[in-house]
C-alpha cells in the first residue's frame, strides 16, 4: 500500500488526470460516443457543453465505468482503468454526480454522506456501529457543513427540497480524497441563489482537485472553469478557453444561436 501511495503521489505531478484515446460507446446501432480523444491535466477545471443527446452523460458513464466503453482506452492518472469496474475507479480518486439525483431517499442526510465516506474506506464491511468520535462520521459531518446542509443533517432525504438534494449529490462526490470529479449538470433546476451557492462550492474546492462539469448555463460554466469542450453528436466539436468558445462563430451557429436559426 505505501508503495502504491508513493506511486500515485509522484504520478500527480507528471501524468494527466484523464487521458481518453479513441473512446467509442455504442448502444445497439446508436453510436453515443464516437472516437473521443481527450486529455485533462491534474487540477484542471473544464466544462463540457453540447445540446441534448450530444453524449455528455455517456462520456461520464464511460469514464466512471457505469457503462464501459465499447472501444478505446481510458487512463486515470496514467493508470489504464478501461476495464476496471466502477468501484475500483472510485477507490483511485475518481468521483461523479448524477444528472438525476441518485440518493438514498429512505435514509437521512448524514447516513447518505456517511455511506459515501464508508465506500472509499476500509470500514465498508464493518459490522460494528460507529462510535461517538468515529472518524468517518466526523468527515461526513464536515462534508455536510461544506455543502451547507448542516441544518437538515438528520432529515430524510425524501423530505429535502430539490436544491438541497442537488447539494447532497455534490457532498457524496466529495467524500474521501477525490482527485478528479465529474459533475453532471449540478445546476439543473436550481434557483439563482442556489446557483451562486453552487459556484461558491465549486470555486472553493482545493486547487489540486480537478473536475469536468456539464453545464448548459454559460454564466455558471464560465465562472468555474478554465477550459471548455464542445460536444455534438457524440463527437468533440471544439476545445478551447471559455472566451474563445463563447466567441467562436461555429459554436454560436451550432449551439448558442442554434435555437434562433434552427
Amino acid at each position: 500500500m505505501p508503495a502504491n501511495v508513493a506511486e500515485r503521489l509522484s504520478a500527480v505531478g507528471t501524468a494527466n488526470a484523464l487521458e481518453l484515446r479513441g473512446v467509442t460507446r455504442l448502444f445497439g446501432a446508436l453510436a453515443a460516443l464516437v472516437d473521443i480523444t481527450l486529455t485533462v491535466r491534474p487540477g484542471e477545471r473544464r466544462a463540457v457543453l453540447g445540446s441534448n443527446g450530444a453524449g455528455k452523460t455517456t462520456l461520464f458513464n464511460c469514464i466512471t465505468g457505469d457503462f464501459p466503453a465499447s472501444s478505446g482506452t481510458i487512463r486515470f492518472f496514467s493508470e489504464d482503468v478501461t476495464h476496471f469496474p466502477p468501484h475500483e475507479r472510485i477507490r483511485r480518486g475518481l468521483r461523479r454526480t448524477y444528472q438525476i439525483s441518485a440518493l438514498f431517499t429512505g435514509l437521512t442526510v448524514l447516513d447518505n454522506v456517511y455511506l459515501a465516506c464508508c465506500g472509499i474506506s476500509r470500514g465498508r464491511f464493518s459490522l460494528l456501529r460507529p462510535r461517538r468520535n468515529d472518524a468517518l462520521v466526523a468527515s461526513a459531518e464536515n462534508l455536510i457543513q461544506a455543502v451547507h446542509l448542516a441544518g437538515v443533517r438528520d432529515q430524510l432525504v425524501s423530505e429535502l427540497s430539490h436544491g438541497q438534494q442537488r447539494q447532497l449529490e455534490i457532498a457524496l462526490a466529495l467524500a474521501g480524497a477525490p482527485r478528479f470529479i465529474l459533475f453532471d449538470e449540478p445546476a439543473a433546476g436550481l434557483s439563482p441563489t442556489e446557483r451562486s451557492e453552487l459556484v461558491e462550492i465549486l470555486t472553493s474546492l482545493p486547487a489540486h482537485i480537478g473536475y469536468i462539469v456539464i453545464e448548459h448555463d454559460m454564466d455558471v460554466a464560465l465562472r468555474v472553469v478554465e477550459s471548455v469542450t464542445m460536444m455534438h453528436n457524440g463527437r468533440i466539436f471544439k476545445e478551447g478557453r471559455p472566451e474563445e468558445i463563447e466567441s467562436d462563430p461555429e459554436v454560436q451557429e451550432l449551439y448558442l444561436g442554434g435555437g434562433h436559426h434552427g
Partner: protein
Amino acid sequence: MAVEASRTSGILPASAPAPTAASSLPRYPALWLLALFLLILPAFGSDFVLIQLFGWTFILGMIALSLMFLGGYGGMVSLVQMTVAGCAGYMVAIFGTSAVAEISLGWPWWLAVVVAIVIATLFGTLSGALSVRTEGIYTIMITLAIASAFFYFTLQNYSIFNGFSGFNAVRVPQVFGIDWRAAVPFYYLTLFWAVIAYLAVVYVSRSPFGLALQGTRDNARRMEALGFNVTAHRIAAYAFASVIAAVAGVLLVWHGGQISPGTAGVGPVVDILIIAVAGGMSRPIGPFIGALIYVLLRTFALDVMEAVGLDGKRFQLLVGVGFLLIVLFSPDGVLGLWQRWHRRFLAPAAPPARGGVR
C-alpha cells in the same frame, strides 16, 4: 413488539434527535411484556407449548429471519435458507452421533456443531455467489434450483446422507450437567439463540455493512459510484445470513432428533418464504410473527377443521387460506397490518415510520 426493531435513528445514536435504543425501550412496554412472558413461560406452559409451539417457532423464525435479512435489507429473495439450515442439520448428524452408526463419525458434539456451522455457511455463501449477479425472479429460480439439487442429492446419496431415511436419534448433548433434551432447557436454548440472532440483525442493520446493504438494494449503481463492490457486499450478506440459518439448522435437527431429505424439501423451502412474507419483511421481528402463525396453523388447523365438520385431512388448505388472507390484506404481512393499525389508533400525530427498510 414490532415497533422498535430497525427504525433509523441516524448513525450517531448519541446526537440524533430520534430516541436512542435506550430511551426507546420505555416507550414500548409491549416489548418488555413480551420479554417477561417468554422468560417465565416455562413456569406455566406445558412441554408441548414450550417445544412444539415456541421452540419450533424460534427455529423457523431464525431461518426466516436469515431470509428477511437478505430480502428486506438486500432485496435478494433467497430460497436457499432452509437448505442451509438442512445442511447444518445433516452435518451435525454426520460428524456427531446418530442411530446410523455406519456413517456418523461420533465426534464430540461441540466439534460437530462448529464444523456443521462452518460447512453450512460456506454452502450458503457459495449459493449466494452463484445468484447475486441475477435479479428478482432469476434469483428465486437459481436459489430454488440449488435447494432442489440439495434435496435430490440427499435423497439419492446413501454413502454420506443415508438416502431417503436420513438420520435419526440425533441427540441434544448434556452439558454443564444439564440435560438440554428436556423441555425447559431446550426452550431456553432456542429462545437464547433466537434473541441473539434477532439482536444481531437489528444491530448490523445500522452498521456500515448493513447500511451499505440497504444502499445496494435501493441503488446498486450509485453504490458502485461510491466505491462499494456491490457483488462482494451481497455475497458477504449471504455469509452473514447463512450463519443464522446454520445455527437454526443445528437447533432444528436437535428439535426433531432426526433429519431426512424432506426436512429441506421444496415444501419447507417455500414455507420459509411464506413465513417471512406473511410475517413481514420490513423488520426483523416479522419472521418470528410469521413463524408463530405458521406453527399455530400447522398445529391446530386439523382440529379446527374437524371441529367445524370438515375433512381434517385438508388442514393444509386452512394453512394456505390463512396466509393468503394475510398477504391479500397487507402486502407487508402482519407487520404492515400492525403498523397501519398502530398509526391510526395509537399515534395519529406521529410522523410516518422512518424505515431503515423501504
